[in-house]
């Protein structure tokens, strides 16, 4: 097969930016900011080429690049994208420049280090999404912890050290068990393949042949690691700490991209590699997902800290994604994929909005706010769009994902019960409750805090950042086919890998009602 280096360029661009950055004098802060931003924009442009080069009608892994890396152990540098990872790559490259832009004024100390770590983080995140070798994937998965650890630890809030160490240890614990499973799988594959192999595409053919009880152990080792990252209830306790303590840019990347790595991992590794185990565990994980949806929503209702509220809302939203993945119907998985993007956009937007106001007031206590609608009308409008997008208002992005997931789980052959959908739907209502409350507490009512009277409204830079996110919020809400088409073939592949006996058709009337008769 012809090697295509486009994906490698995608990884190299931020890496080169980060390394070059080390040679710039740290006192030239402005230049460093532009420099980092420029490289993240270059990365975004490369990812657009990737989008242009990907043939959605063909589906599957494309634009692959492969060469022997550690020949003795048959480990190769093997990268490529399919529809699912392509969307997540686009999300990453889209959010990174925006977060750099958002920290233009917020990060005042150690600008060089901050920009460096952000670019390294981008390399790590992109690497996770494009790796087609389990070893390579693991390297990126772990390496990415280091920049995030520093971003929270250096530029975070008062409890940052506690939060960042907790984040680090939690993730490390989960991923090391996955490492053992990866090696076990590679050793197991030596027999059928004739050599030790960590190549994902080769392992796709080996994984399903493993005995069921061993598959279950393997599945658990992988799923545990991903579940911590997602996070699935009850492994979510690191998330609120990390979110609250991280600087705005850190929170946006954490919520926007890092959590998706967990759900992406479930979809890319757990399901296709261990299909029988996935079917066995699907009901249990779905129950945990639903607990997460309801628990996250209920806890979010009583939060006093703005960031904590958004953090718990993430637990709830990611619960939908996990439910969608394990319902194992095309609608639900398509919904899960689009919901991953949605969550990245709308939660990213919410964190950015919190950051905008925090820069001015230096408080995130909800009780300090109230009645700022008249003082900062533009901010109030933007916050409303972000909030409603998170609520899942029809016409905005959140609705599409949740609707598809609920629809898919309703007729899921694996879960085989309406109960899941009924409980999950209650989560949608709860989401409306806590998010509308939060909006009301911040924007409406009387001005409780006289300091709020001096608030300045959003500046052009901030408006630009949020507006560019809202373009996609509305785009996905109104015409999701652009994005659903990209992943349609790939999600279909996942289902065929897990449920080979089912015929996967996609001509459901509900869908036509939702998105019209456009080609999927």
């Amino acid at each position, binding site marked *: 097969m012809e090697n295509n280096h486009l994906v490698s360029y995608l990884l190299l661009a931020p890496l080169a930016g980060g390394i070059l950055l080390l040679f710039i004098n740290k006192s030239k802060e402005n230049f460093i900011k532009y420099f980092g931003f420029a490289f993240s924009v270059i990365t975004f442009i490369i990812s657009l080429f990737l989008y242009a080069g990907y043939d959605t009608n063909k589906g599957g892994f494309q634009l692959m690049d492969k060469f022997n890396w*550690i*020949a003795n152990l048959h480990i190769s540098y093997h990268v490529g994208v399919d529809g699912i990872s392509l969307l997540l790559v686009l999300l990453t490259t889209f959010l990174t420049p925006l977060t750099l832009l958002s920290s233009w004024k917020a990060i005042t100390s150690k600008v060089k280090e901050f920009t460096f770590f952000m670019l390294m983080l981008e390399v790590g995140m992109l690497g996770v999404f494009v790796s087609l070798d389990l070893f390579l994937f*693991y390297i990126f998965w772990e*390496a990415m912890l280091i920049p995030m650890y520093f971003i929270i*630890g250096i530029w975070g809030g008062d409890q940052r*050290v506690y939060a960042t*160490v907790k984040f680090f240890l939690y993730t490390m614990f989960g991923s*090391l*068990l996955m490492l*053992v499973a990866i090696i076990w799988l590679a050793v197991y594959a030596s027999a059928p393949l004739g050599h030790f192999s960590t190549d994902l595409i080769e392992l796709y053919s080996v994984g399903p042949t493993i005995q069921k009880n061993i598959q279950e152990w393997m599945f658990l080792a992988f799923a545990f690691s991903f579940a911590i990252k997602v996070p699935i209830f009850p492994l979510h306790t690191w998330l609120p700490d990390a979110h609250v303590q991280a600087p705005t840019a850190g929170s946006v990347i954490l919520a926007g991209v890092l959590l998706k790595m967990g759900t992406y991992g479930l979809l890319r590794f757990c399901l296709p590699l261990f299909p029988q185990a996935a079917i066995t565990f699907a009901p249990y994980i779905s129950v945990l997902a639903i607990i997460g949806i309801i628990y996250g929503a209920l806890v979010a209702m009583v939060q006093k800290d703005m960031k904590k509220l958004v953090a718990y809302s993430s637990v709830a939203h990611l619960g939908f994604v996990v439910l969608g993945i394990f319902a194992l119907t095309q609608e639900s998985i398509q919904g899960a994929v689009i919901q991953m993007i949605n969550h990245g956009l709308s939660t990213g937007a919410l964190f950015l909005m919190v950051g905008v106001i925090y820069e001015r007031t230096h408080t995130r206590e909800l009780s300090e706010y109230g009645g700022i609608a008249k003082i900062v009308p533009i901010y109030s409008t933007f916050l409303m769009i972000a909030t409603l997008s998170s609520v899942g208002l029809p016409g905005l992005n959140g609705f599409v994902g949740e609707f598809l997931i609920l629809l898919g789980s309703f007729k899921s052959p694996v879960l085989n019960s309406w109960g899941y959908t009924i409980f999950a739907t209650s989560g949608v209502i709860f989401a409306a409750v806590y998010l509308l409350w939060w909006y009301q507490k911040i924007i409406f009512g009387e001005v409780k805090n006289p300091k709020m009277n001096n608030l300045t409204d959003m500046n052009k830079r901030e408006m630009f950042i949020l507006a560019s996110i809202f373009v996609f919020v509305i785009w996905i809400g109104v015409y999701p086919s652009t994005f659903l088409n990209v992943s349609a073939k790939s999600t279909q592949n996942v289902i065929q890998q897990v449920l080979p006996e089912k015929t996967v058709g996609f001509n459901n009337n509900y869908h036509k009602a939702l998105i019209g008769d456009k080609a999927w």
Partner: protein
Amino acid sequence: MLNNIQEFYNILPLVILGAGILVSLLIEMYFNKSEAVLPWVSIIVFLASGFYALATVNSISVVFQNMLATGGNVNVFYFIFTFGAAIVSLLSIDYLKKYGTYYGEYYLLIQCSVLGMMLMAGAKDLFVIFLGLEVMSVSFYALAGINRKRLNANEASLKYFLLGAFATGFIVYGIALIYGTAQSTSIDVITSKFTQLQHNLLFDAGVLLFLIGFSFKIAAFPFHMWVPDVYHGSASTIGGLFSTGGKAAAFSAIIVMIGILLHNTIGNIFEPYLAVIAVLSMFFGSIVAISQTNIKRMLAYSSISHAGYMIIGLAAGNYDGIAGIIFYLAVYTFMNLGAFGIVALIEGREEANLELKSYSGLASRSPMLAALLAIVMFSLAGIPPFAGFFGKYYIFIAAIKAHLTWLAIAGVLSSVISVYFYIRVVVLMYFRETETELTLERSNTGLLAVIISVLLVIVIGIAPGSLIGLITSFFR
């Protein structure tokens, strides 16, 4: 004796070092400014010997009537020892001024100890192992107490000597039992008789005693008691040498011995012993390291824990295990020399700044050192893309191939524990404010040594293939 000139070339690494020792002795005796010359002489000798060994890695032979092996992984070990010792010498130049003592013997003893290590790695006979061990150990005992005016150093030296001698007793007793049952001390003979011998209880006891003796030397639990005191008491540079070269040499001797198992299909009969001490070392080292406040003691416990990981490779007892250990030792040498090197650079006069709290806020005062130490810590913790990760990965592959998945799981659990104390150093350096004022004495040579080590940690981490290729090519 040597049969031809080719064999002479094959043992040239040892000859170079031996000649170096004599030249250094003369310089020390007749040259007044030996302090300025000797370190560079040692470095040149080490590098010449090491790179020659690397260049002739393919000339595999057995010389001196089946006493010494040359080429192959023996030469890889030579390179690890000499390169590590060269870095130690480079670090020592400025460190010794701070440490307040200079004796010409210092470099001489380092050279002698490396010669001992090389004899152990190349041994084809139990006596050569013993000879090498004693050359190395006696030099080490003296090195530990090189600053005879300091109480700590004397304590370290004496402790090391007493426990080391005790361990040697085990080894000699083991060799005696092996000789008694196999009627030979030649490794080749023992290997060929192994199938019958392994049912002989006395023979098994002999090998076990041999392994126990070397468990002292590699600092495995429960034979680790000397490690923290010795590392703490002796000079930081010497601590670096003990934990890298010394450990690597002891492992090379065990590998020579364990090699007899590889040609048999029966499996590893010493697996239970090795597996148990592997698990105990890993967990004990990681858990106790958490409570340390002195960085050298912390590194000592971390060294116990790392010995545990490497013993997993021995327990696996397959080619991947052995290759994994050699790879791990190479990587560990660079990581630990980086760590001890930075400790040596930061250490003040009169053993100041060895407490962990001296490292708080280091990133703002010396960003370069902080970044280097952070990389070393992440690598020791086994976080990719640094080399330490790949070392563990390789060892775990060996364990799983040998159906010891539980040992790999124990390994990763202990890794998680160890991450805590490694990243605590990073927390102190980057996330805390300065607590104690510290004046860093500039040392360009010391910094160079650390940078070389850290660069190797990064390069091997990103491209481990060539080193693995080198090691494994001799197993086929």
